[in-house]
């Protein structure tokens, strides 16, 4: 090839090498060779004629196979406006607003215009937690593109048969988690097979996944962990055993609680009977009880030891089971416990029991109690029942409260709650981050706009007011965007 020869000469320099003219360009080559100029001039002219000659004769490449076409979308495409907003949100990295747009598109059963799909797939790669919903709105185009791009293939890779044996830790955790939900006993069987060969951190991570759907069927396996080398594994297994209603350990707790708690009936005014609850301070717990993680001496000043022991035991017993054994309802039991003179020392433990065992009657009785700060009591209520109690957590539990308020369905907050939140945030603007303000805006009702506008017009120049003014402006923008979306 003459071109290779010319390039060789150019690389080495004309002092070291000079090519012969091309056979194809013999006439021109001969003319160049006959020029009364230096070698460099002749080489450059040879290069010009050869390279240009080649370029003038170029032909297209041959493409062997054509890519398969994307199958037709089964879902309608989101409107041009919505797709444009998604593009802008991606560009501006406005994750809260993007998440809302994605939610609305997914809710409407729509898919994005296909040119946006690569951007969304890249976004899903960078944030695996949000990947499923992002992939959903990519439709057929997403699946088709994932088949062509190795980086994106993970989103549509079928679960491998030997994930448990060969997968990395996250895949194995995901596998075990799914199995635990589908078949709890099988998850334990699987875990038993390899548990001893795992390292301590992995054993603990896998064990923690069993917290979902704990049952007496898990007792044998958990008991076998009492000899585990890892202290954390042992403690976690014991904690689970304490919580399993009907386990040997839990039965011991129940037995102790039933020994301490007595329900009596007293006649009042000679007309009606009234149940009263008495706690027997004289019942001596079995020493074995204190080897299961129960403290013998009260850690809290002013709390009698027997109340402290009872509290620890009560938080491991399902209120419904305890009430049944006492032959009263769980609502009656909590009412009696709260009426007891030592109730204030038990509140924390009762609240924990109500949360762990999702006991609605107890949660409803405990939430109005002064001093209750355990926001997880809301877990025992239906989502529709929770808003009545949100207000009481604004001042002391705002970050946790926001995890309830900013739900995945983008529920609109009531105006009074919105106002209370905004008032609190205007006084404490740094309690939440900017993305949370953006997310909050998506839950605010349109009626909250005048209040936000008032904050925007607040002319004070202290740094907190200025910061909140900026956030209020941003929230107004997002409210407008949301309102104009439809």
């Amino acid at each position, binding site marked *: 090839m003459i071109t290779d020869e*010319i*390039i060789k000469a*150019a*690389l*080495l*320099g*004309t002092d070291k090498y000079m090519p012969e003219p091309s056979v194809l360009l013999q006439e021109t080559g001969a003319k160049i060779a006959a020029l009364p100029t*230096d070698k*460099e*001039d002749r*080489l*450059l*002219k040879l*290069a*010009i004629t050869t*390279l*240009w000659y080649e*370029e*003038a*004769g*170029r*032909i*297209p*490449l*041959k*493409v*062997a196979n*054509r*890519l*398969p*076409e*994307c199958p037709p979308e089964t879902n309608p495409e989101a409107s*041009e*406006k919505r797709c*444009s*907003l998604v*593009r*802008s949100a991606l*560009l*501006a*990295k*406005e994750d809260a607003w993007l998440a809302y747009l994605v939610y609305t598109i997914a809710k409407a059963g729509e898919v994005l*215009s*296909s*040119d*946006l*799909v*690569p*951007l969304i797939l890249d976004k899903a790669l960078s944030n695996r937690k949000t990947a499923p919903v992002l992939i959903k709105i990519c439709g057929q*185009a997403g699946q*088709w*593109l994932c088949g*062509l791009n190795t980086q994106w293939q993970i989103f549509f890779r079928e679960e491998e048969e030997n994930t448990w044996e060969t997968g990395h830790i996250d895949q194995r955790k995901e596998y075990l988690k799914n199995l635990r939900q589908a078949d709890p006993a099988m998850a334990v069987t699987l875990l038993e097979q390899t548990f001893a060969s795992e390292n301590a951190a992995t054993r603990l991570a896998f064990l923690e996944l069993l917290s979902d759907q704990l049952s007496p069927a898990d007792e044998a396996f958990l008991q076998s962990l009492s000899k585990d080398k890892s202290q954390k594994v042992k403690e976690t297994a014991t904690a689970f055993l304490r919580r399993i209603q009907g386990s040997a350990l839990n039965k011991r707790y129940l037995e102790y609680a039933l020994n301490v708690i007595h329900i009596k009936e007293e006649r009042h005014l000679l007309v009606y009977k009234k149940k009263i609850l008495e706690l027997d301070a004289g019942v001596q717990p079995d020493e074995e009880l204190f080897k299961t993680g129960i403290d013998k001496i009260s850690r809290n000043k002013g709390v009698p030891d027997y109340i402290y022991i009872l509290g620890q035991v009560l938080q491991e017993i399902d209120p419904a089971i305890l009430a049944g054994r006492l032959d009263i309802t769980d609502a009656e039991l909590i009412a009696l416990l709260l009426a007891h003179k030592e109730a204030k020392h038990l509140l924390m433990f009762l609240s924990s029991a109500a949360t762990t065992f999702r006991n609605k009657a107890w949660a409803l009785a405990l939430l109005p109690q002064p001093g209750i700060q355990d926001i997880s009591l809301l877990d025992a209520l239906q989502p529709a029942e929770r808003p009545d109690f949100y207000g009481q957590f604004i001042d002391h539990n705002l970050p946790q409260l926001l995890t309830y308020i900013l739900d995945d369905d983008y529920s609109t907050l009531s105006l009074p709650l919105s106002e209370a939140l905004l008032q609190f945030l205007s006084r404490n603007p740094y309690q939440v981050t900017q993305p949370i303000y953006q997310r909050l805006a998506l839950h605010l009702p349109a009626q909250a706009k005048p209040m936000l506008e008032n904050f*925007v017009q607040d002319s004070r120049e202290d740094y907190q007011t200025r910061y909140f003014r900026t956030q209020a*402006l941003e929230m*107004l*923008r997002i409210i*407008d*965007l949301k309102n*104009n979306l439809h």
Partner: protein
Amino acid sequence: MQYTREQVLHMAPDDASAKAGQQLANSSKWTVKCISDTALWGDCQGSGKNPYKTIVDLTNIAFKCSCPSRKFPCKHGIGLMLLYTQQADVFSTATDIPEHVTEWLAKRQEKEVAKEQKEAKPVDAAAQAKRATARKKKVDAGIGELRIWIRDVVRAGIMNIPQQSHQFYLNITARMVDAQAGGLAAQLRQINTINFYTEGWQRMLLRRLAALYLITEAYQRIDDLPEAMAQELQTLIGWTTAKEEVLQSQPVSGTWAVLSVTMEEEGNIVTERSWLYNKSDGRFALLLNFYAGNQVPQALLVPGAHITADVVYFPGIHPLRALIKEQHSLPHSHIDITAGHSLRSMYHELSAGLTENPFKEQVPFVLNEVYIHVTEATWLLSDGDNDGIALSNTTETCWQMLAFTKGKTCSCFGVYERDHFQILSLWADHKTYFVK
């Protein structure tokens, strides 16, 4: 106002401005929001005491803002237009246009008139000839030095150039600037686009040096060349033709589709390339604008728009670079061009073009019935005959283009350059994708 959200975002000079503009598309930020037949204006409360006054000329899209930003259009201009696309109802229709708006619109009008007067102004021929002679002398000397430099490079061999790829041409580039051969300097700077870490750099460098040598060789015979070729050569070396002179040439009238608008920043200079396509005769026109520092563009074209315009071309062989003499926007319509080219016929045309003008490097084409193909990380544009050409677009853009087409056939506009094709816009099923 006929602009869509996408078109407004396309006007942003960079992604940061587009993002900032979106933040300002907030009704609460604007204390004044007004629209009339000719303009859109508003007052945006910034961090300072006085709000920024932003105006958008809707007749021939242009922006004005009292903010100190050096970007154009600034975030306020983008924000105001975006707000209008989102919430037109928050804008009041003004009957009395405020003074600062009328003043600016009037000034723009005055400038247009002044431009026309400037066009008509006679030139001092004697002074011009004197300047031309002095310049020719400088260029001659510069070209002589360039020829020696190229020969020196070839004599020493290019083997070691990758180790000094960023410096070896700097002195000669500076020398070409001194010699008032700006075109040659720009071509020397193109050496930095060669990737010296990939196989094939040797050929690309030799091609670049050979092309420069060919220009110098042709320049020595410029008096024997046809007038159009001589003009072409002079442009390549760095002689510019005054815009006023170009504006006086015979215009090409017609309905033009704006096929692509791209901005590229290098150093302090932003280069704006707008490709137009004449729907009646199939001619392309390239509007090149260079903005330095805080220079303000006079008019913006939006990709996908259609205009009726009188376009005048710079002199040369089948020239592409052009200016718009007069333009009027047309209602929005989809791009729908049938050029009848296959890839094979494109190559034939390129070969024919090379014989007419061996210096031509970028050639625009509209191709129909083509599809995007990827094989082992190589992106190709292919047609029904299974012919293909490598794409020079970025991988990210290629994925987006493939997603846009869904693997189906489409039409595209792009530019051929050195055996690669750069797609600048794609269209199919009344949808268009513009590469930014």
